[in-house]
């Protein structure tokens, strides 16, 4: 029987992964170690996604299994076991748009890869984005939008950040169904990405982290 949590989770063997996690918890293993293994597995998942071996359903399934493992481990965690974060990212779906499946995957992958993510949800008013950036001093902003109506919303949000003098303090990435280089130029964003791993790459490039 397999005892390799990393392999089981990376291979999306749900039953095996949960069984092994439970065995380790019952066996008194350090909960930090278990979560480290889980995060390592998710890194492998991310790499397989980048090489087009895995796709979105695999990311979502891995998130489900990780959620279950985290729930199992949580009672054993103490304040001392919190992990240091690479940096802060504010993210949200822009005003007028209520889609969030893609954004949620990005939030998840950023979190798993060590970023402190402030997810503002959907249909986020321009002012709320500006305020969150001021409040958190985050140096990366992600804007998501699925419909063509998001283009102007993204542009307005970025212009509002410029208006309060914060544009050079924050790197901005955009993503969503209809986003391309045309729209990146139109909105004034620094970069756009096709998927969650692109967001992780950009955040690492801008904030450090391997």
């Amino acid at each position: 029987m397999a005892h390799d949590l990393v392999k089981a989770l990376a291979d999306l063997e749900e039953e095996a992964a949960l069984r092994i996690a439970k065995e380790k918890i019952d066996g008194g293993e350090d909960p930090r170690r278990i979560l480290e293994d889980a995060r390592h597995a998710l890194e492998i998942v991310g790499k397989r996604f980048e090489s087009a071996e895995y796709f979105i359903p695999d990311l979502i399934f891995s998130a489900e299994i990780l959620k279950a493992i985290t729930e199992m481990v949580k009672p054993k965690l103490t304040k001392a076991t919190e992990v240091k974060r690479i940096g802060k990212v504010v993210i949200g779906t822009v005003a007028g748009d209520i889609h969030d499946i893609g954004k949620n995957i990005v939030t998840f992958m950023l979190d798993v890869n060590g970023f402190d993510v402030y997810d503002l949800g959907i249909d986020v008013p321009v002012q709320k984005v500006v305020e969150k950036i001021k409040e958190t001093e985050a140096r990366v902003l992600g804007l998501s939008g699925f419909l063509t109506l998001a283009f102007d919303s993204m542009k307005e949000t970025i212009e509002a950040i410029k208006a309060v003098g914060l544009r050079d303090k924050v790197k901005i990435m955009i993503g969503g169904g209809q986003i391309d280089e045309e729209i990146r130029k139109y909105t004034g964003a620094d970069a756009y990405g096709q998927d969650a791993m692109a967001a992780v790459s950009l955040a690492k490039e801008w904030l450090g982290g391997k």
Partner: protein
Amino acid sequence: MEKTPEELCKEREQRVRDAIQLKVPDRVPFIPMFEFFPAYYAGITPEEAMYDYDKACMAWKKTILDLEPDMYIGPAIFRSGPVYDALDLKQLKWPGHGVNPNLIYQFVEGEYMKAEEYDEFIENPSDWMLRRYMPRIFGALEPFSRLPSIPEQFFYYGAPSAKLATMGTPEVQEAFQALLKAARESLRWATVLMSFVKEMRDLGFMPIFYVATYAPYDFIGDNFRGTHGIMLDMYRRPDKLLEALERATQLVIRMATSGAAAAGIPVVFIPLHKGAEGLMSLEQFKTFYWPTLRKLIMGIIDAGLIPYVYTEGGYTSRLEVISDVPKGKVLYHFERVDMAKAKEILGNVACISGNVPNTLLCTGTPQEVRDYCKRLIDVVGEGGGFIMDASATIDEAKFENVKAMADFTKEYGVYK
């Protein structure tokens, strides 16, 4: 001498039919899939478009007469706000009801079918939909969840006649009243739509399709299980999902064939959602998405109708798989696809439509639009089998760009 509307209508019909059947038409047809573009163009808000039927029709009439597409979709695509209000629909937010009046309606993701309910759905879809699903998506019909099933309500002459009592309770009565109100409004909307079709026919234009249906995977994934739910089902309960897909196939074929026959317009629209690149692997596409979709396509063809398979998202990796259809019987629309490859793999099998980027129509120039159209006509229009369209349904777009697309197709797309 100027052609009569009737002659123009026949000419357009012939042009589109020739393109779909892989014969060489007189020129490349132009069939833009407008959604809310006519509203923006005519100067009404999406909210007005959904609530004021006269304005909705006015917007479409203006758009059609100004751009003269070979066929159009029509105001049905706006949907009726009042019908949704009467039912208190939860699966959408729309202008005036959760969304800014200037913006289009949007889908609300949710798990409207529990994973444990697959067997109920498979055994009796109508019962499950009436007493479990509809109460969840229509706030006004929530009391239907308390109705016993039809067999449980049946009584014969010797039995107590109190079995209909649940239907007599005030809340269930109210639910029936709401349904009645929605049905009356729906009839009013349908009547408006039919008279619009007649009015436009008298002016020389007809709709491309009147009926739409779903790929079985989308039928279950969009409406019932939600995106997350059905993705997880592929891993956690693949056999149950496959069984449900087979069951759904019968339902979606019926949706297609009964409606189209009644309307007398042979094209059946099938928008594809959850089988796109990224949303599942090619293996998952071959296992869960394509087989029942193909059965739907064949069911439509066997009924003498034309499937208009409107793919959304990326499909280049799936071109080989979807080429397995009878020649000259299918219209495939593409959004993000290598169009040269599409022509290479599908050119001898099916008609192709697309794929001027919506971003270009929104932020580009007329010349950039013309350049893109030229490349499409040269590569995909070679020898026929091509219909000019945008990559996705059109809401925001600059009129001058859409006009450039229309005019260029009609000038340059002529077959000598």
